[in-house]
């Protein structure tokens, strides 16, 4: 059965307007719709099979909107339940590869359209779509040994399907939330960005999504399964060297190798001493504010100045290129949701400033007692105001100020340059001409 339309990434950006659509499946005007991937035992799958439950394209009325479900079942030695979500997200991409077929959103929210043009060219059954999905899944994810696809358009059946699927999504999310570094023995690395930042690489753990926010532990796991030698690979976590900082022997070993010797060790949950490196893709940056001994965060989309008086773009130049820079950490916003978020530095107790839009996004993950103690641009746009705010609200960092104030600073002895007795330079009738003398302020 040859698919009558082209299947290629080049159709990904294609949008099908209402006037050009043959039918709409799912979408905001239809109450039941959804998609799901489940892992099965090999014996449970008729490989390559596509079923359509309910009326197919040729039985649907042109211009109509219908309930719709996509159910993909897969099996394979290396395919485990943990990968279902990753595989499921591919449905969106693959559907869009099909010329004249549009797929938006995911899970119980999907919205698809078939174009008139493609229908006229003979794309008159969902079987073609199933066939495309099967071919693409197998080509990109060879760990899938067997696969079958079921499309449902029958209203009752879609409803039942979505009810069941919701339970599975929930269970899945609960598991993802509960999964932690302690529970797994493998982390994942990503070297994709080495194409631009040759010594940077990301360590991805269940408690730490990649700094670009694009790859979580499950994604890393799936990619490493598919191509262990590829840009995403397994890192045996090794021994836990330092629980608070999040230092692991296995991670350090790989850090040395993959950073081309540039970096020796990573603290996965600190911005001090040996913070994780960054390329340039980080969604946000955490920065140390010495004046209040706290940490601020600003994200890429924040226009305007941070509490330090400089915008994101200025702070962002402090780190990058796979360099380890103390006091600055490029990270994903999602990392703020991690229970281990900068735990070595005090986590949320150390967080003093972040843009309002980020605060709103992660508000549920901020400990309730701290929510009103962390400043945004509405509360403070400079250090003085920030100090006042923190004091007024009783932010935990204020405690730290007292500690610091109590410590006596010993006097420092400055060593003179060129110790006496060693060498002596004699200049006789010398002429020195400097084209340009540069005076730098020493900080």
């Amino acid at each position, binding site marked *: 059965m040859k698919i009558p339309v082209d299947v290629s990434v*080049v159709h990904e950006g294609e949008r099908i307007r209402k006037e050009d659509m043959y039918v709409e499946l799912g979408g905001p005007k239809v109450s039941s719709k959804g998609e799901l991937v489940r892992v099965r035992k090999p014996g449970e799958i008729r490989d390559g099979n596509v079923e359509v439950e309910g009326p197919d394209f040729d039985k649907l009325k042109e211009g109509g909107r219908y309930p719709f479900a996509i159910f993909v079942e897969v099996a394979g030695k290396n395919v485990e339940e943990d990968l279902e979500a990753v595989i499921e997200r591919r449905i969106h991409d693959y559907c869009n590869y099909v010329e004249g077929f549009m797929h938006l959103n995911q899970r119980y929210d999907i919205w698809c359209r078939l174009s008139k043009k493609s229908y006229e060219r003979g794309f008159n059954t969902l079987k073609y779509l199933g066939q495309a999905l099967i071919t693409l899944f197998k080509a*990109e994810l060879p760990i899938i040994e067997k696969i079958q696809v079921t499309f449902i358009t029958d209203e009752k059946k879609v409803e039942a399907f979505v009810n069941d699927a919701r339970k599975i999504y929930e269970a899945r999310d609960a598991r993802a939330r509960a999964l932690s570094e302690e529970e797994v023995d493998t982390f994942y690395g990503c070297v994709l960005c080495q194409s*631009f930042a040759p010594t940077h690489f990301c360590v991805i753990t269940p408690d730490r999504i990649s700094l670009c926010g694009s790859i979580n532990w499950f994604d890393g796991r799936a990619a490493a399964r598919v191509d262990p030698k590829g840009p995403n690979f397994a890192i045996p976590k090794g021994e836990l060297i330092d629980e608070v900082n999040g230092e692991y022997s296995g991670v350090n070993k790989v850090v040395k190798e993959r950073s081309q010797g540039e970096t020796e060790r990573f603290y996965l949950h600190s911005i001090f001493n040996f913070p994780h490196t960054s390329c*340039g893709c980080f969604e946000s940056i955490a920065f140390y504010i010495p004046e209040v001994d706290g940490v601020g965060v600003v994200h890429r989309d924040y226009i305007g100045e941070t509490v330090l008086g400089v915008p994101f773009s200025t702070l962002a*130049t402090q780190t990058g290129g796979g360099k380890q820079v103390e006091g600055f950490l490029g990270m994903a916003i999602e990392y703020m949701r991690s229970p281990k978020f900068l735990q070595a530095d005090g986590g949320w107790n150390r967080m003093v400033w972040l843009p309002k839009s980020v605060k709103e996004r992660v508000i549920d993950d901020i400990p309730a007692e701290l929510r009103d103690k962390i400043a945004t641009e509405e509360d403070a746009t400079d250090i003085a105001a920030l100090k006042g705010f923190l004091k007024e609200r009783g932010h935990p960092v204020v405690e730290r100020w007292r500690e610091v104030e109590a410590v006596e600073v010993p006097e420092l002895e400055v060593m003179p340059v060129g110790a006496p007795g060693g060498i002596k330079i*004699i200049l006789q009738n010398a002429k*020195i*001409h400097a084209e340009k*003398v540069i005076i730098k302020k020493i900080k």
Partner: protein
Amino acid sequence: MKGTKFKIDEFESDLIKATGLEITVGRIVEEEWEEILGPTPMPSVTDLRKWDFALLNRYKPMYAPLCDLCCLCTYGKCDLSDGKKGACGIDIGAQQGRIVLLACCIGAAAHGGHARHIVEHLIEEHGDMPIDMGKNVEVEAPLVRLIAGIMPKKLSDLLEPLEYAEGELMHSLSATHTGQEGYFTDFESKALHVSMTDQLLMEIADVAQISALGFPKGDPGAPLVDIGFGSIDTKKPVILCIGHNVVPGAEVINYLRDHDLYDKVEVAGICCTAHDLTRYDKGAKIVGPLSKQLQFVRTGIADVIIVDEQCVRADVLQEARKTGAAVIATNDKICLGLPDRTKDSPKDVIDNLLGGAPGALILDAEKVGEVAVRTAIKLSETRKRRALNVVKEAKKCIQCGLCIRECHNNLDIPRGMEKAAKGDLSLLSEIYELCIGCGRCENVCSKEIPIVSLLGGAAKEITRKERYKVRSGRGPIQDTEIRNVGSPIVLGEIPGVVAFVGCPNYAGSSKEIAEMAEIFLSRRYIVTTSGCAAMDIAMYKDEEGKTLYEKYPGNFDAGCLSNVGSCVSNAHIAGAAIKIASIFAHRNLRGNYEEIADYILNRVGAVGVAWGAMSQKAASIATGFNRLGVPVILGPRGAKYRRTYLGRPDKSEDWMVYNARTGEKVQISPSPEYLLYVAESKEEAIVSIAKNCIRPNDTTKGRQIKLTHYIDLHKRYFGKMPEDIAMYIRTEADIPITLKAEIMKILKAEKWEPRITPDPTLLERLCRKKEVK
């Protein structure tokens, strides 16, 4: 501080004993920039020669002499054909290098003169203002930092790099003198060098005018402004500005604003001055690109024509005479033989112009503003716009066919005349679409028919309705925009960056460039543009009546169309490439040209397209991009630049790089395949663009998406799978998943072997480990 001198007769300390010590210091600069100074701040003509040779070794110049002769000195003319040398000993190859160098010098000089004028003028008028490229632009002047090694903070800081570039220009140009440089590669190296300084000069000019004149500062949402003949309100007095230097035009706007006249007078522009006028004030109108110059002047719509510099027709005065428009020359580069009225009172000048003087030279922008406005208002009351009887004129044609032989595009004017004589103007109007407005046909017409006017007259119904939207030039690309696209590029969601730039000397329809842009926009490439190309992209609407600027956002992002601005704004496109290195790899920029160019050549999948390149400036712009490691594709007319830089994919030894991880030399795919290529047709260009976005550092996902588009476009336009596909596949993971079966078959047949993806560089010094053997 400048010029300090110390003298120490005798001095003794524990460390130093000095007698008769004299220390002189040229300049003392206080500096906060902590970045380490790289190896080549303000490189001399030969400092980067090694890098040039590395490029020239892979991308060997192919010369196509436009003329076999040389007539540069009194030994000549010398005939250099058949291997003969000139009286000075030069051969035809070196002579081509020489001419190319000359062109690049002219181009750089044009931008340099412009930059010098604008920086000095702005400091004088506005004071030594701080350099401000807006929020989210951390690296304010990437080229100044990279090439000159300084971080400019105020306008006067631009004077030092400016002076540097002027010096390099002098050295480079001097090499073209008889009896100087004698070998083609060294001519090329100098051409690359002077074109690098050309980029610097463009940046200086634009950074200065953005800072001082309040242009949009890296704003993706810069306003949509009007472009097209039809956008000009002909009921009002019209002032037309032609050229590239916005200063006099800006003064016109100032005068209008100050005198509450802005809604009573139309200010319109042609060429880059037009772009910059809209950046100055969004109410200014753009008539169109250079190709519309003669056409528009002929319409007689303009009451006053202000010319500044570059790309102005040399016969503008004669042309203006025909319509009764007054010409004001405003710049030392273009004086047109006019009397210098700079010191005269505006009233005298105005009276003189109203009394029938063809024009005036006024080298004081503020005065230009006043004279132009007052003259235009008066002239518009008295001047009559003559209507042309196309049919009557066409009847004069005797079908001699001389015109067609002068026309670049072989346009069939005689047949158009024949039809027009019978009252059918359709063919002339079609010809208008393909005409680049050069006027050469008229020069030879046996019956002295004003052919260009006839074309315009025939297309009048269409042009009157020509009203489009173009996004005003936004200036630099924000750092955050560059950060935004990092991850989608490595994850294989963005296939590359395509820049449509340059003049409108097209071999086909001017619509081709918009068609090309849309192909890459719809495929989610990052598309950016500048200059006349940015205008032609605007002059095209889809079925819904929308221009590409209305359809695609102005960001530097996938599927977005960013217009950086005028010709000098091209520097921001180079700047974006440079910033990738500083942002992602944290490479130092300061005086570190070679390393950054190497980074860009090997990693940044960007391609420049100058589809209608005409000028010497376009030659230096392209050559400047080439030195920085960015390939450029020219339209067929580009062959007349005499030189292309072409790689040889069939020679595997040409495609070796160091793997910086190990120090080993490794094989890469032939990418980019060219540095400077001439495509015969738009189809060839389109496929070439997609292919030349490939880089040796591509991640497998990145390579997949790039190949997907290359293959898809190749199949679409050429009807089959490209034959060189195996060369571009390093591992199976590079194969686009939808084409796996098809490509595996090819690989098998070609006995393909997998290769590694290196950390690619041409510079041995950047290797972390040296090869151990």
